[in-house]
């Protein structure tokens, strides 16, 4: 990902720009209020690919894209944006808002336009888009652009990305695949993730709760002991029995009917929401340098879950590998 590239959902400035002098805007045009919308930077969740959940909720009300966290937030922002956008031009009576069908048609025209420009290896320049396609619908170019990028992602697996805010150039790129994202997240993020995944995978592989003793056996691989303070993790015991539990990643419960008292770990509700079984399998494969299919029944479960997820969310799919041209 180029440093300068921004997600389309991010710079909604794109439509303010034509109102100010397009050609000479050196930096960020006026209309970019706090656009670093939390919905547009889902870095916190390793699982959500940048385009899907963010673009989806910001598009026209399309109930099939439930991205739980993003939706209400982003729609609220969209409403705010709309309000903010309208106030400066409230003075002049604007043209009547077009029928939704017309906006949809414009989005389709724009999609084709972008595809052809890309095919011809021509620059996709925003002012050209406005002049050649959007035309009198300039005021609604934001929603048109959003819908277009949504279609491109869903149907073609392509990302309409603003490559240069300064020159207003877009490019069509292959969408970043979720696995690369995960790898990035896992490597760069706090090592906590590795620790957590270790425990979660142990629980998963056992198929039931993992006794604390078993967990410590595994953590020994990382050189962690319950009584030792670790340079990175600090008090590991506190971390896994309190912090992770508080964050709902783990559940720490007493094993019933056992004396002296023993405790075991389960997956927390947040882990179940954020982490897929397939990710666990892949983590295991990496750690043990085995094929994920070395745990056949677990792998089967992971496949089932993946299929169920795909059917529930047909929108969130991207080319899995980086593209090699024919």
């Amino acid at each position, binding site marked *: 990902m180029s440093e300068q590239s921004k997600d389309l959902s991010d710079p909604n400035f794109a439509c303010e720009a034509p109102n100010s002098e397009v050609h000479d805007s050196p930096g960020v045009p006026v209309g970019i209020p706090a656009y670093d919308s939390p919905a547009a930077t889902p870095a916190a969740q390793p699982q959500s690919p940048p385009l899907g959940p963010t673009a989806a909720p910001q598009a026209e009300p399309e109930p099939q894209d439930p991205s739980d966290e993003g939706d209400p937030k982003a729609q609220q922002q969209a409403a705010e944006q709309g309000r903010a956008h309208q106030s400066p031009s409230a003075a002049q009576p604007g043209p009547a808002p077009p029928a939704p069908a017309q906006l949809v048609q414009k989005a389709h025209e724009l999609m*084709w336009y972008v595809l052809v420009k890309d*095919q011809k290896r021509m620059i996709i320049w925003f002012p050209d888009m406005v002049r050649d396609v959007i035309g009198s619908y300039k005021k609604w170019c934001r929603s048109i652009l959003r819908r277009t990028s949504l279609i491109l992602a869903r*149907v073609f697996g392509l990302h309409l990305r603003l490559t240069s805010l300064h020159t207003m150039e877009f490019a069509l790129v*292959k969408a970043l695949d979720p696995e690369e994202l995960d790898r990035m997240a896992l490597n760069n993020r706090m090592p906590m993730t590795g620790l957590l995944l270790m425990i979660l995978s142990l629980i998963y592989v056992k198929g039931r709760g993992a006794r604390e003793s078993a967990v410590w056996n595994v953590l020994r691989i990382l050189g962690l002991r319950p009584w030792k303070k670790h340079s990175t993790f600090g008090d590991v015991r506190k971390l896994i029995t309190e912090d992770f539990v508080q964050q709902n990643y783990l559940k720490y419960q007493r094993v019933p009917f056992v004396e002296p008292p023993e405790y075991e770990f389960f997956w927390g509700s947040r882990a179940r929401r954020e982490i897929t079984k397939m990710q666990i399998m892949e983590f295991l494969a990496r750690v043990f340098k085995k094929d994920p299919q070395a745990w056949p029944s677990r792998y089967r479960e992971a496949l089932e879950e993946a299929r169920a997820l795909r059917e529930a969310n*047909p929108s969130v799919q991207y*080319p899995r590998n980086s593209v090699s*041209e024919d």
Partner: protein
Amino acid sequence: MQSSTRKMGIMTDVHRRFLQLLMTHGVLEEWEIKRLQKHCYRVHDRNATVEKLEDFINNINSVLESLYIEIKKGFTEDDGRPIYALVNLATTSISKMATDFAENELDLFRKALELIIDSETGFASSTNILNLVDQLKGKKMRKKEAEQVLQKFVQNKWLIEKEGEFTLHTRAILEMEQYIRETYPDAVKICNICHSLLIQGQSCETCGIKMHLPCVAKYFQSNSEPRCPHCNDYWPHDIPEVFNPEKEREAGTSKSNKKSLRSRQH
């Protein structure tokens, strides 16, 4: 829009990559399409069985329908080779070309198109086209320039050149059929067999109906006494052979085939 996607075909990464690459190439022959399909399966879904091409394409088309685009299958008019292109069905303008060419260049194409449609053979001579250069809209264009523009059309697969004469590339026919039928309803010729737009073909000298060469080949296949389907008069022309992809591959080593294959690839 999303709800219709759900009910009809399912887009997977295999389909998406296929679409991406088809879009990149613009137009592909059937053997290239099949290879492309296999490639996409190999990259994204190694273990799945490769769906039958027709179903595969229909699946994608059901998703594209609401976007007014379609993977269209056509046949080259001269030798009946099946080709595929991603086509924009919106006929408001010469949409695909509009982004590539200046106003006067587009007008040159329109003039050439009219000459081609009006001609008997489906070909318009370079001279006749260039003589219209003065009537073009937009910036004035010299004949020398116009020659280059015509070559640009050939390179971009809108026109085919044969011995100084120009006709429509199959891709242009696929893309613009609707536009042409709506813009030139009186001048346009239709094949009597397949009812599609006809640029090159054979005609009955008695009643005037026309047929594509590949349509003639199929219709009169192994018929020793070919007769016009309309007026039953003796069909006066040579009957071409039906396109056979197997023979094509065997003869693949022959120079002319290699050349035409290469020219079709980017």
